[in-house]
């Protein structure tokens, strides 16, 4: 008998080991204390007996996420292979944890990291935790749509030139709206300058499984990437994968991940990563082409309705929109006189359709391998109805999603400094010491260390008035804001 059978993408080591333990019917004197749901009948009924029974803790046959030597190691190896990486780390604290691990593994307090300002809050959070300093590259802005775009190669070049001591460059691939920078070119420039390239691919999992979508981080030669398997890859919410190449020390990265990741990794999440990897590996090409087909059809039909603008590849300009993720269905709504968030609310409240987000001028619907023709038709019809019933003059509407911030202090210093609480409308001129953002998308309007301006205050008030969920401040009502007490 062969002792070391080579695993293939058809295998699911964690899934298999878990199934084996379930069939073994162990007498459990370990956690979790619900013991297969017997100790919490309501939970068992709600989630289903099978699901609750699989909620087991780490044990020898199931390996250990903090120190993988058997089935988790094998599953991570298969994931690395599927994504074309040298190593893969399963993450159960969300892609947030993966982004933070990338930053904390490559910078320490005082180090510089180059990034676009329209990063997810998790990236700036990492800077608050470890004290690294951001060098922001202002993203391009599309004037008609008001949305932030990718980074221009020239701006990245300037940032590298002006900050030769920067340790790494973080790139969104793609942005929430599906826009990609010239990743390959940025990787080449960064590597020439001795910098690492970290990629936030929270919205780009599917890039790895299609020939017709924008280039993936690993293919472009980036050193690390945070891939939100749960977003478009089909695993359970909160599960994610960190990919690395052998240009970084994998054992050190594991230590960094273990600084903050739970020691009780959920096997529901881990097995979902395992099964989702297999599924994408075997069927990802099919799903991706289905996603492109659905999104392209919806774009075409929505644009026929008039008023709406479902944008796509025509935005590509070879620079700040180097490429576009055609599976994203983003629709500009301002020309029918409605804020994106208003359309988002109408879709849910009146038509029972939940989309990913609505912001000042756009909505975003996530298309995945799980979609059906029926729901796509419902979405288009509901948009048609919303236009028929609610279209109005667009005068007085805010026309952009993004304001270039003025940075006056490092995020960690500003966040932990002595603070004053002020009413937001009276805070102009202060240095913000906390975050303010609409969630989703979770891209900060203000981050710690940034100057508060009248324009930003106006933006926050407008977003609140239109119904955006504004978050980040200590004040749960988001009426007051903490600023750095510069007299201290």
């Amino acid at each position, binding site marked *: 008998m062969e002792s070391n059978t080579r695993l293939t993408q058809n295998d699911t080591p964690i899934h298999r080991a878990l199934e084996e333990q379930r069939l073994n019917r162990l007498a459990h004197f370990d956690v979790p204390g619900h013991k297969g749901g017997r100790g919490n009948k309501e939970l068992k009924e709600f989630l289903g007996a099978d699901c609750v029974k699989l909620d087991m803790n780490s044990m020898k046959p199931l390996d250990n996420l903090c120190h993988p030597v058997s089935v988790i190691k094998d599953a991570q190896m298969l994931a690395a292979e599927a994504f074309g990486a040298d190593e893969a780390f399963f993450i159960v604290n969300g892609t947030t944890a993966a982004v933070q691990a990338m930053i904390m593994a490559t910078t320490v307090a005082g180090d510089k990291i180059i990034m676009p300002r329209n990063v997810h809050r998790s990236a700036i959070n990492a800077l608050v935790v470890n004290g690294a300093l951001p060098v922001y590259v202002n993203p391009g802005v599309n004037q008609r749509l008001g949305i932030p775009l990718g980074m221009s190669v020239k701006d990245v070049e300037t940032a590298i030139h002006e900050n030769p001591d920067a340790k790494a460059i973080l790139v969104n691939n793609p942005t929430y709206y599906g826009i990609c920078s010239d990743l390959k070119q940025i990787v080449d420039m960064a590597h020439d300058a001795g910098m690492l390239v970290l990629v936030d691919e929270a919205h780009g999992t599917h890039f790895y499984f299609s020939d017709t979508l924008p280039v993936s981080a690993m293919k472009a030669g980036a050193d690390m990437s945070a891939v939100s398997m749960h977003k478009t890859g089909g695993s359970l919410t909160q599960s994610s994968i960190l990919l690395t190449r052998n240009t970084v020390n994998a054992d050190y990265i594991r230590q960094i991940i273990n600084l903050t990741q739970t020691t009780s990794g959920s096997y529901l999440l881990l097995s979902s990563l395992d099964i989702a990897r297999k599924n994408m590996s075997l069927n990802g090409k099919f799903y991706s082409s289905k996603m492109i087909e659905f999104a392209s059809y919806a774009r075409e039909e929505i644009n026929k309705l008039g008023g709406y603008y479902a944008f796509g590849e025509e935005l590509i300009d070879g620079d700040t929109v180097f490429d576009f993720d055609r599976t994203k269905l983003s629709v500009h709504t301002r020309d029918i006189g409605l804020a994106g968030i208003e359309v988002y609310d109408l879709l849910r409240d009146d*038509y029972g359709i939940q989309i990913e987000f609505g912001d000042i001028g756009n909505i975003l619907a996530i298309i995945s391998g799980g979609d059906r023709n029926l729901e796509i038709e*419902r979405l288009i019809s509901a948009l048609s109805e919303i236009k028929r019933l609610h279209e109005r003059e667009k005068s007085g509407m805010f026309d952009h999603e993004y304001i270039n911030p003025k940075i006056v202090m490092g995020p960690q210093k500003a966040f932990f400094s002595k603070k004053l609480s002020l009413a937001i409308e009276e805070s102009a001129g202060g240095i913000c010491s906390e975050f303010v953002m609409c969630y989703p998308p979770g891209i900060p309007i203000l981050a710690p260390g940034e100057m508060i301006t009248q324009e930003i205050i106006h933006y926050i008030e407008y977003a609140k008035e239109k119904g955006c969920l504004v978050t980040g401040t200590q004040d749960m009502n988001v009426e007051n804001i903490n600023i750095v007490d510069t007299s201290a």
Partner: protein
Amino acid sequence: MELWYTDKHTQNVQLTMKVKNQIASVESEYQRIDILDTVEFGKVLVLDGELMITQKDEFIYHEMITHVPMAVHPHVENVLVIGAGDGGTIRELTKYDTIKNIDMVEIDKSVTDMCLQYFEETSCKLSDSRVHMHFEESIRFARMKKDEYDLIIVDCADPYGPAEGLFTREFYGNCFKALHEDGILINQHESPYYSEHSRTVQKAHKHIQQVFPYSTVYQCHIPSYPSGHWLFGFASKKYDPIRDLHEEAWNRLGIKTKYYNTDLHKGSFYLPTYVKELLGMTGEIKNI
């Protein structure tokens, strides 16, 4: 050997009929389609295991879904029929010479093909020159139309399969847009009796009410359907189903029916108290 077919009415109730033989069975892109010959109900059409129509009582359903609006609207020329793959609704509509065009939109061509071959009792008028069959997603078809139809009839299965989209507010809104300013929308409205379905009835009615200025429901008795007590929705931009009933004019047409008559027309809008309560119609009939 005895063969029996069971239609599940709810999780806990079922209707079982003795089968003489299975006439045809195919798996289409959308669903499994069976036509059986039964002892009591004659031929029956079954989609994904659920009974759609029986040869014995389909006339009740098809007469009530067509003649009620036809006796109210004084000049129906252009009709859109959603679903109706078996052809029964079309058969009733073709009895009116005043109708000039019937667009029928059925998602599953296989249903129509099967009925043309094995259920000629309902599909017999599908070849009428006024009938135009479109095999596509009906929610899409309706969305493309504006101010075109006098009457729209939604003759579909229950909302737990391919017909799910036909019970949504956006679909009713698309129908409103597709109708002329005096248009009528009739829809298959499920049964109010079992609690498993009554929520669907309630939700559909609420959606229609939010779209049309006037809306109510009317009822009939269909023995082979769950509980036998069945509802149709009557939504309109202008006409009242009782006040605007053209009793004499309709009777002068001399259309032969087995269930529908103009007395029953009026009566069918008078609803049991529990149904009125379910639909929030306490007091007199709402709106109209």
